[in-house]
């Protein structure tokens, strides 16, 4: 009877996202024990998830702590408790096998509840969704509908007052926790250094935001999803602060990683320091997800901090992902943007050259075509591109022109989501709703590219 070779077993195991399945797999035989070992112990996550429930915490639901296809160990932890948890984890010899470290501890950020009130205030001015109203309203003058809308608005207006006691109590707890976090910052630094000293196999760090549901913590609140509150104010996300903390610990232990992914990245909080330079040195893969992209605007000065950090990754970088626009709605903000604000030399924005760069992924941006092309054409080994929700703001330099200018090294590219180009008016605003939609299958075969549709994505390969 046929059995499968090891290289296929590894791939089969990668499709087993449940810890229980991997545990069963490890006991099949020696070969399977070795293959399933890696995904079981190579990932460690310090997460704030389930901190929005009071202990005892419910057992984790597969797929909630880790995205599909990822298994490993998630330890629920508050930022301030990191020293205790690190000691506990170091008591287990398996940490030395950790290759991927995901960091999103529960972190009580300042002004959270003020931002919550801002969110309530903003909601008061949002249009009322009439979908849920009684469709049998047959009042001739629509007075029933108007009254229903008014009731919703009144409910919104009185919500801060109704929830005031809970908000004040929550604020008091937050104030206490924030003070505790500040007091323990040095202890957290020291704990992370201890952890990284042992993590000899560490290759990848992923920093995420602590996302929680405030209405679970405080059932009297109508709704309080943290991601909506965090989005109320620029720079409120703590992930860039986490990035610097981890950079300091890596620097202190002289530990280097190959892969860095940061969610809710806020560039203006990042510093050019020996620690952040150390973090970027040797990186092969970088992914930055961000909501605010003003530092990339055409009219902005070069963003020197990131320029210097990207220079540290210049000899080694193989893949670069710049994803903007957030999860909702994924459409780009207004105005033309340029990658050369973070990926170029002075004084004329000569693109940085990454000799090993093979893959570039861009999402949720309005980009000016010439600087984008200059950057792509400067990369000697660029093979593949992936873009989603990208609009090109340069008049008369839309997608066909961009594609025509791709360097000869590009073997294939993939697009998904809405795409646009060619502003309706040359002098009009650079915004997605002032541009023409571009359908990828409009690209003629004379372009030299053959398109293939799969689900919501279109792949292109060169016509040989």
């Amino acid at each position, binding site marked *: *009877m*046929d*059995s*499968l*070779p090891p*290289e*296929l077993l590894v*791939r*089969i*195991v*990668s*499709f*087993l996202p*449940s*810890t229980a*399945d*991997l*545990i*069963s*797999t*490890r*006991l*099949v*035989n*020696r070969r*399977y*024990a070795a293959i399933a*070992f890696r995904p*079981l*112990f190579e990932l460690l996550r310090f997460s704030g998830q*389930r901190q929005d429930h009071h*202990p*005892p*915490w419910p*057992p*984790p639901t597969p797929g909630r702590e880790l*995205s*599909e*296809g990822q298994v*490993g*160990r*998630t*330890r*629920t932890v508050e930022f301030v408790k990191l020293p205790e948890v690190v000691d506990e984890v170091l008591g*287990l010899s*398996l940490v030395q096998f950790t290759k991927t470290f995901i960091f999103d501890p529960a972190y009580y950020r300042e002004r959270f509840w003020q931002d919550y009130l801002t969110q309530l205030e903003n909601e008061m001015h949002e249009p009322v969704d009439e979908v849920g109203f009684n469709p049998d309203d047959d009042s001739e003058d629509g007075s029933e509908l108007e009254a229903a809308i008014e009731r919703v608005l009144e409910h919104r207006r009185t919500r801060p007052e109704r929830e005031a006691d809970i908000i004040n109590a929550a604020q008091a707890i937050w104030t206490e926790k924030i003070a505790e976090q500040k007091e323990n910052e040095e202890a957290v630094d020291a704990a992370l250094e201890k952890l990284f000293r042992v993590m000899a196999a560490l290759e990848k760090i992923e920093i995420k935001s602590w996302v929680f549901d405030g209405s679970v913590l405080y059932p009297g609140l109508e709704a309080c999803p943290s991601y909506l509150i965090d989005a109320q104010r620029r720079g409120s996300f703590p992930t860039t602060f986490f990035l610097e903390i981890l950079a300091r610990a890596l620097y202190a232990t002289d530990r280097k990683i190959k892969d860095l992914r940061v969610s809710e990245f806020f560039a203006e909080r990042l510093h050019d320091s020996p620690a952040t330079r150390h973090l970027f040195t040797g990186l*092969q*893969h970088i992914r930055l997800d961000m909501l605010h992209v003003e530092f990339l605007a055409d009219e902005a000065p070069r963003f020197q901090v990131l320029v210097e950090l990207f220079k540290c990754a210049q000899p080694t970088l*193989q*893949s670069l992902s710049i994803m903007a626009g957030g999860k909702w709605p994924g459409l780009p903000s207004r105005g033309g943007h340029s990658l050369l604000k973070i990926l170029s030399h002075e004084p004329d924005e000569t693109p940085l050259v990454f000799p090993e760069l*093979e*893959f570039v992924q861009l999402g949720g941006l309005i980009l000016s075509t010439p600087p984008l092309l200059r950057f792509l054409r400067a990369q000697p080994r660029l093979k*593949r591109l992936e873009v989603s929700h990208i609009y090109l703001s340069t008049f008369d330099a839309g997608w066909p022109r961009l594609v025509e200018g791709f360097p000869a090294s590009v073997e294939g590219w993939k697009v998904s989501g809405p795409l646009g180009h060619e502003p309706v008016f040359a002098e009009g605003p650079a915004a997605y709703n002032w541009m023409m939609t571009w359908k990828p299958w409009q690209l003629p075969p004379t372009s030299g590219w*053959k398109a*293939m549709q*799969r689900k919501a994505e279109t*792949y292109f*390969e060169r016509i040989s």
Partner: protein
Amino acid sequence: MADNSMVTLMAADHIEIQATLQAVKQCATLGTMLEVLDEQQTLGLPIPVLEVSGEALKKVIEWCEYHREDMVVETEQPGVAAQILTSLPQWDTEFFANIGDKDLLIKICNASNFLEIPLLLQYSIFVIAQALRGKSTEEMRAFLNIENDLTPEEEQKIREDNAWAMPQN
């Protein structure tokens, strides 16, 4: 040779299978072989596929015929995390559902690996993984045709390590 011309493949058990050239080109191994061979000398001769049984080769060619218009897409690309496959297209779901026999499924998986058909390989791996989900160790061994070669001491050590991997707070 035109893409719609027919070629004959000969499996390990000497079973001959007819296929369009276009479908055969889904198999990188055979496509390369055809490119390097002298067409005049090989025209009309069956192409030997001696690593694959007739039963498996027949199913592989059935899949290739359906997908012959598709572009061959690399499912694993350097420097990029593989996209997580969560389901198969309808036709492919039915294709694998009709296989029924798990040994034939493993043969198809091995054949697509040998013949270098990235998408069929990815799909068959996915289907095997789906079949393993929720199975006990003994059931996995039976499905994969594997003997246990672990000593009791090795098993004990694995159980101890696994205790740490069990979901905890």
